[in-house]
């Protein structure tokens, strides 16, 4: 039992990630997809932070004792994953910023941010492009083929 519950951070990270992944796949609203992507990445941040924990560990910084001498109050947590995740958070924020910028532009060009409607419009665009690109003699065959 403690084997399962003792590592509850890891359960939470997996659950968070899966909620995010579900949102990315299942939500038609682009903003919700961006939020879900953020959740997915946050799960990973939690994983790295959990990995850094040492039993009874403290922050890895010099502490001043009463007599003025500086020394480590070890044991301390592994600082490396924290630093890595600081970088990953910046990356995550940048991705979110780019995603939102794209969504704003999509709203301007398509008039909607619902993925299924955009998909339909894209499909129509592609059909127009496909027909315009065909050689004239082949166009009739392909038309028939498309309806069949």
């Amino acid at each position: 039992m403690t084997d399962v519950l003792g590592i509850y951070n890891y359960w939470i990270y997996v659950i968070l990630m899966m909620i995010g992944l579900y949102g990315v796949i299942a939500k038609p609203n682009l903003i919700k997809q961006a939020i879900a992507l953020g959740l997915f990445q946050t799960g990973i941040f939690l994983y790295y932070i959990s990995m850094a924990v040492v039993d009874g560990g403290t922050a890895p910084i010099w502490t001043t004792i009463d007599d003025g001498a500086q020394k480590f109050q070890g044991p301390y947590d592994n600082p490396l994953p924290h630093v890595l995740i600081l970088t990953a958070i910046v990356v995550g924020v940048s991705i979110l910023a780019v995603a939102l910028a794209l969504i704003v532009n999509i709203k301007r060009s398509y008039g909607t941010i619902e993925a299924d409607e955009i998909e339909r419009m894209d499909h129509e665009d592609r059909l127009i492009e496909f027909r315009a690109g065909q050689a004239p003699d082949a166009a009739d065959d392909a038309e028939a083929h498309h309806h069949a």
Partner: protein
Amino acid sequence: MLDLRQVPDLLQGPGWQAHLPVLIVTIPLIFGVLTIATGKGWKPWAWATAVTGTVFYLALQLIQRVLASPTGMVSYELGNWPRQWGIEYRVDALNAFILLIVAGVGFVTTVYAKHSVEKEIPADRHNFFYAVWLLALCGLLGITVTGDTFNVYVLLEISSLTVYALIAMGKDRHRGALTASLRYLILGSVGASFILLGIGYLMMITGTLNMQDMHERLMSVPGILESRTVLVAFALLLVGLSMKMALFPLHMWLPRAYTYAPSAVSALLAATATKVGVYMAFRFMFTIFGVGFSFITMPTTLILASCATAGILVTGVTAIRQTNLKRLLAYSSVGQIGYIVLGFSLANVNGVAGSVAHILNHALMKGGMFMALGAIVYRLDRCDIRSVRGLGRKMPLTMAAFTVGGLGLVGFPLTAGFISKWYLVQGCLDRPHMWPLAGVVLLGSLLAVVYTWRVVEAAYFQEPDDDRPVKEAPLLMLIPMWVMIGASVFFGINATFTGKISVTAAKALLGVGP
């Protein structure tokens, strides 16, 4: 013959070459950002050309240092921090080769980009375009030189973010560029997150981020390779990397992205981005996990070879049906990635060598073909099968470049594609019970004949819709295009250079002696 030891050393200063690995990344990073300040007109382009030219020169210097080095590699510790704590850049024959491809193609496409960008992107955004362009190259070059796994992730995200922006810059021609970019962003970020998670698991069990240290610890600690942590790390990395290199069926982002991106961007991406993804797969599978674990303990050969096979055949058939030529080439690119993956999934010298050689050959051919399409867009404003009718007489040099590139995709003798497919078929025959895969390689070539022939037929044997005169593409587009196509023919006729370096790299990856 191409002797890289003869490249003259322009800067005679003492010891500056020790810093080559890091200069290759920092120069496009710093000067890329400064591009925004270069103003309007031709200046951002000239600036970007100067920067990429410098990087190409540095890459030539670096490969000659690597080849001359007694250990066969150059190691650089950033800020003099030992590799246990700091980031190590580590360049061996394989890196140096991929680096040369990325830097070379980067330089040539930058030269090419001038007219194409003037045509396809509003004038007030050229400085931003070239800034993002250089940052994308910085990310791709960085992934290639670094020997630190977390650094791979960071540079991967630098290149991905900038590539999303570059694709979205096609929005003024077609709104599809926006959705293509967003779709790539979501899939790409999920893929990169899997890679980050895989790196996390590896770090958890080995306690290091350095690739070489990881490998040594995975090999030396008994029982570590059987632990579930390593298995999960491998699975996560395999999925993440397959997404990044657009291995079928995780390629869904690629066709739209290449179709709607500005033409110069399509040429750059087709030649470099997925190739760097394949390079990452090499590093993780061969250098970190080792051949024994990646290909004997785990059923990687089965998984990758079946994905690659399906990819080659399905995308070949899909490409035949396309009318938009950029989309046609995009599907063909997914198929070609299939060949590259098929090669290294065999895990024998000929297969991996074919894979490495095909990275170069496909970069040259597909880059050159996308450049030809860019030239057609420049003159006709579109590039579909209808618009190229009769174009063989109106734009003879452009269509000839496209045709020679297409012959390379088919694997016609005397083109570079023939050399890599030769190695691939050899690799398939070297593995017991794998000979049907050689048939797949040949069948894929047959499909390439069909989709290339459709374009060639339209260009040379059909009458145009109207008699409007069309001028040949400008010289600044033709020269880079023919440099790429010419190089692919050169490496097809004189296979000593590619053959030697790809067999050396393959033997080093497989650890079977020099």
